[in-house]
């Protein structure tokens, strides 16, 4: 069975009201283990909406998303959160770090929910910082980081719980070309770690990369 199965997925905002808007229409998509998928589409096409449903950030209006055979769209909040915490690492366009905390404190945040020992915590933390290549800045407040460093910090946080799925929403939109290329290198690392990676983007830098397994384009909420 596929790692992620998306079946007849609809997302309708403000359903039943005058402002009703169908952001996603009948999406069907299977993603296999270890696959890297790029979702392309113009602004407003529904990329972010799709990712948010895959991460159980929001609930679909119809249809369902199965991860490892489990319908995550119907999970009560406690289980949906647990799913996000354990199986998903999310990388945001605006990095979404918690200002005022250090790199280390930001990266450790997903781990505080389970009662692991200090040494366990430290080793996971160290590992993630190393993978994202941000170890040398670990005590610095995230407000003082450069854009590229911020993203590496966000990546470390996404990796810290060793999730099987990495979702990235416009990861390069706030980066210069050099840092964007670095991100592509990191994608290769993900590939090596055998993670499922889904990147939503309209950045052409992702075009025609040989290690990408699949390109999916989406327009007006439908897969083309």
């Amino acid at each position, binding site marked *: 069975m596929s790692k992620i199965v998306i079946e007849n997925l609809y997302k309708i905002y403000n359903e039943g009201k005058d402002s009703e808007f169908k952001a996603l229409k009948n999406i069907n998509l299977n993603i296999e283990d270890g696959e890297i998928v790029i979702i392309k589409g113009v602004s407003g096409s529904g990329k*972010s909406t799709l*990712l*948010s449903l895959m*991460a159980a*950030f*929001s609930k679909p209006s119809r249809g369902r998303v199965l991860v490892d055979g489990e319908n995550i769209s119907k999970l009560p*909040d*406690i289980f*949906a*959160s*647990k799913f*996000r*915490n*354990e199986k998903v690492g*999310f990388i*945001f*366009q605006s990095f*979404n*770090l*918690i200002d*005022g*905390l250090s790199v280390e*404190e930001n990266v*450790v*945040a*997903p*781990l*505080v*929910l*389970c*009662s*692991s020992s200090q040494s366990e*915590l430290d080793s996971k933390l160290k590992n993630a910082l190393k993978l994202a290549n941000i170890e040398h800045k670990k005590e610095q407040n995230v407000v003082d980081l450069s854009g590229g460093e911020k993203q590496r910090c966000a990546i470390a*946080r996404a990796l810290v*719980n060793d999730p099987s799925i990495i979702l990235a*929403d416009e990861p390069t939109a706030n980066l210069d070309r050099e840092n964007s290329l670095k991100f592509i290198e990191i994608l290769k690392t993900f590939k090596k770690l055998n993670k499922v990676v889904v990147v939503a983007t309209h950045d052409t830098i992702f075009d025609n990369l040989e290690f990408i397994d699949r390109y999916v384009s989406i327009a007006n909420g439908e897969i083309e």
Partner: protein
Amino acid sequence: MLNKNFLNFSVKLLLKEKGDYLFSFIIFGFIIFIVTSVLLISESIKRDLLVALQNEGQIIVKNTKGGRYYPLNDNHIDSLLQVSGVDDVIGKVDGYYNFAQDRRFFKIAVDDDLNDTSMVVSKDIYKILKDFKYEKEFNFLIPPKNKLTLQIKDVIDSTIISNNTIFVNEYIARQILQMEEDEYSYLDIVVPNSDEIENIALIIPRIFPNFLVLPNYEIEADYDHLYYYKGGIFMILYIVALISFFILLKNQISSVYGSKRKEIAILRSIGFSIKDIISLKFIQNFLVTVGAYFTALMLSYAYVFVFNAPLLRNIFLGEIEKEVVFTPIFDLKMLVLIFIFTVVPYLASILIPSWRLAIEDVSEAMK
């Protein structure tokens, strides 16, 4: 969910946002400070009265004649000693000396450790005497025209009991109060078995119908009555203040939480559940309130027992007794009472705002 790492993380977030909680901390601390100070003062006064009472016998009797107090004598003592259950009867001397120059009465009490030429006065009295240039000694005028000069041996702190008192030995006290050798102002009756106090208190008036009989539990109850209702009325007034504070707090929290929506969405996106966010906020507010509670407690102890409660003391003591000091007390029950009174409603009032914050749409993080 309530593990050490989670607690640590909550504290880190709290320290980062301490400015946001400063308002609640200060106002809330102030509220606790006032309520604690008032209760400390009233408890301390009550305690002093009760301690003084414990130094007396289990029953105090006074003689009256024509509705006025009248001295007792050895015959009374002898017949009271006949009552079964009575262990001992001690004649006591006290009374008031009219200090005509300042148109006030000083209470005269007995302290048999003093010799015939010395006396001990309270700070309040010492101040008055000094105003009349009696710095080292004082002349008691005893009609018709005797003069008794006593050295001021010591000046003691004024408590609620001693603030208007001059201590002398029994012989001198009799002279000042013009009492005969076998006259007493009141009698202390010692009753070792507490079950018998009530019964004896009923028997005495049958022997001496003129006697005023005051068993210790009645006096105690009188003190309790006097102070419980003062405390209670104060608490009721205070609830009004508390409620207005919580309305303020709610607005403050809503506005602070409004600016935190993004942060919460971020936490939710990395796996914090609604329950976790509510716990997080609960822990943080608990720490803030407990911090405010202990800070306020320490400040009120200092305010009442070190600085003698300027301003507030006047409500309890009036303007005259300026030098009264409060005896420090530690009453765990009272502290628990204050804790429940203030911290529980505070935490109750943040439950709904915390939940509102926690249910923010996680997709918010993506904007």
